[in-house]
């Protein structure tokens, strides 16, 4: 038999069970013995009863102490509980047997608390105790009256005086014991359920207290609404950010309290508010939805740009409301703007002197300053290359800043691929020639038309090609175009030294790129990162296949025009 509790409460319940049992034993055995002594004095029979009772008290007392030992293994407590159950069965059976069943009120007094205490451990313990004790009692009684058990008449003498009463008495006793068992289990069930409910309620209250603390201290504004858009809850920061007091907001339509403006400052009608669009959220499967580029209007009529995260409150598969956690992004937008302005300014300030250096050097190289020696031409050529590299770096940084702010303008149109590839080959012709590389163009069977921004696609491809050229020492670079069902795949393959996995994964991470040492090969290192952003903007994807033996292939996927 296993004890039906495996929860963290197991030990506690077993301790109670054993302790309760011991207390009942003391409460009933001690007065019974005193009554016996007063009635009969200390004769042989009473001495035996005292010995048995003392033995039982002592044994159960040891179990009480054992149940309080700091033993971690649950198995130990299960064994203790089972020991107590066996002990109870023996005790119940003995008391009934020796006291003539129903004839003895003491037997009933034993029976009820034993079963009640067993109920603490669950139905298995109660039924095992009740049914086993009843069965053993019936067997022993039958054996006694069949004279199998010696010495004679160990069962209640009053029954032996009138053996005709035996059968009804035995049946009644068994029936009463089983009834008490069932009632004990039922009461135990109620007690267990109540304590379980109390525990659950406590944990719910703990969770509630936690959530209340989180809501109170969270740095964002929070507003919850019912499905009709009526505000049901706001937090302190909501009051701070919007100027509305809690009692003014709760119970009113969200759209009346917190009107929403679009990017052009026009009021968003309630039906179009993302935060009120339930059907829309149902289709998002209960996920959080982010809203940006809108503003809220405060109580005093001033506005603030916000970002918000909206999630449905789902109960029993039904949306019973929405939570909207929002934040005033005025400061971060300002900071972002400052950062962009700073980078733009710095780029401009850097581009001018670099351009001037290049201008002077170009003039010298074109002979404006007179004839140059071979060495002078060589040195000046190097200065020009370095200044061009610096310009590219500054341009890339500026482009990244614009892209990351997400406000670059995109002009998606049907674009034929082969002219773009031709243009690419033309632009990079000199650079390929300088390194002695040849360019192979593998065309698809049919002309492919993609949906892209031709300038940005050209820039992305250019960055990838420039990278391939920078890392190739010999051989050729291949540009292959092919089509899948929905995408055009443009692969740019070089026979350079390839890259390891870490390098590949770092390629598209700006922070890693900027922290890495400058590349000896002459790339700015930002090109592929920029390419990834540019391709992503055009709903495409970029991936890298690289082995140290075969070189690197970078594959750009751009959506094909439909139809």
């Amino acid at each position, binding site marked *: 038999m296993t004890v039906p509790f495996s929860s963290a409460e197991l030990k506690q319940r077993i301790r109670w069970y054993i302790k309760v049992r011991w207390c009942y034993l003391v409460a009933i055995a001690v007065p019974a013995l005193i009554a016996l002594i007063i009635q009969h004095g200390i004769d042989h029979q009473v001495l035996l009863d005292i010995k048995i009772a003392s033995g039982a008290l002592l044994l159960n007392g040891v179990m009480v102490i054992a149940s309080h030992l700091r033993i971690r293994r649950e198995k130990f407590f299960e064994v203790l509980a089972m020991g107590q159950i066996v002990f109870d069965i023996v005790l119940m059976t003995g008391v009934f047997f020796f006291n003539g069943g129903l004839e003895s009120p003491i037997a009933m007094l034993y029976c009820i608390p034993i079963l009640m205490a067993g109920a603490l451990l669950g139905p298995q313990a109660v039924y095992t105790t009740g049914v086993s004790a009843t069965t053993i009692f019936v067997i022993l009684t039958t054996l006694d009256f069949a004279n199998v058990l010696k010495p004679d008449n160990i069962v209640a003498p009053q029954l032996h005086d009138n053996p005709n009463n035996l059968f009804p008495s035995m049946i009644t006793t068994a029936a009463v014991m089983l009834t008490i068992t069932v009632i004990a289990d039922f009461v135990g069930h109620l007690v267990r359920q109540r304590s379980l409910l109390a525990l659950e309620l406590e944990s719910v209250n703990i969770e509630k207290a936690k959530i209340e603390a989180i809501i109170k201290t969270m740095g964002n504004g929070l507003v919850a609404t019912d499905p009709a858009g009526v505000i049901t809850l706001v937090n302190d920061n909501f009051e701070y950010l919007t100027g509305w007091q809690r009692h003014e907001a709760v119970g009113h339509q969200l759209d009346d309290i917190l009107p929403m403006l679009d990017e052009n400052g026009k009021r968003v009608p309630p039906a179009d508010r993302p935060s009120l669009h339930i059907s829309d959220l149902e289709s998002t499967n209960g996920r959080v939805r982010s809203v940006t580029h809108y503003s809220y209007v405060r109580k005093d009529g001033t506005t603030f740009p916000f970002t918000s995260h909206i999630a449905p409150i789902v109960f029993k598969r039904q949306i019973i409301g929405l939570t909207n956690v929002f934040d005033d992004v005025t400061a971060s937008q300002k900071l972002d703007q400052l950062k962009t302005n700073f980078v733009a300014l710095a780029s*401009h300030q850097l*581009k*001018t002197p*670099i*351009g*001037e250096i*290049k*201008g*002077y050097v*170009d*003039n010298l*190289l*074109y*002979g*404006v*300053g007179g004839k140059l020696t071979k060495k002078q031409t060589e040195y000046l050529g190097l200065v020009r290359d370095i200044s061009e590299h610096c*310009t590219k770096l500054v*341009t890339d940084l500026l482009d990244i800043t614009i892209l990351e702010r997400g406000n670059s*303008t995109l002009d998606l149109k049907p674009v034929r691929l082969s002219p773009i590839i031709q243009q690419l080959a033309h632009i990079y012709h000199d650079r390929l020639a300088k390194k002695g590389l040849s360019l192979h163009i593998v065309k698809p069977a049919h002309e492919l038309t993609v949906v892209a921004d031709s*300038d940005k696609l050209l820039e992305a491809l250019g960055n990838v090609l420039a990278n391939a050229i920078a890392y190739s020492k010999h051989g050729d670079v291949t540009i292959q175009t092919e089509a899948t069902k929905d995408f055009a795949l443009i692969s740019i393959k070089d026979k350079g030294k390839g890259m390891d996995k870490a390098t590949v994964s770092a390629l598209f991470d700006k922070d890693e790129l900027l922290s890495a040492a400058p590349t000896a090969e002459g790339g700015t290192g930002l090109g592929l990162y920029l390419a990834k952003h540019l391709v992503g903007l055009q709903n495409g994807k970029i991936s890298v296949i690289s082995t140290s033996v075969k070189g690197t292939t970078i594959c750009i996927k751009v959506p094909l025009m439909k139809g």
Partner: protein
Amino acid sequence: MNDAGLHSTNAKKILIVEDELPFTQIYRDAMHMYGYNVIEAEDGEEGLRMVKVYKPDLVLLDLILPKLNGFDVLQQIKASDELKDIPVIVYSILDDKPNIERAMKLGAVDFTFKGQTPAVEVANKIRAILDPKEK
């Protein structure tokens, strides 16, 4: 105003409107090599005034200028019946497409990137515009 390099009365006059003096020098030297006369202005207002006074054969106009920016200068040149036929090459340090398109729409003959296209190549472009036969 600086009228450095007015060597020949027959040579064609190029007005460079540029606030960064090193660039002025770079372009001036390249123009001189091609035999052009160069006059210079350091801001938009001065540039416009000199266009009116000297009526150069061609204007090399920076877009980012103090006082009056390059777009405004270009617009005013093209708005004047007297000046609108003077070809204007616009250039800028910022190579963004909207700026190029705007300048071309306003009537610039060409656009070039300051610091990228060598000054001598700009002079070549100018020769192609002013003396197409020599090309």
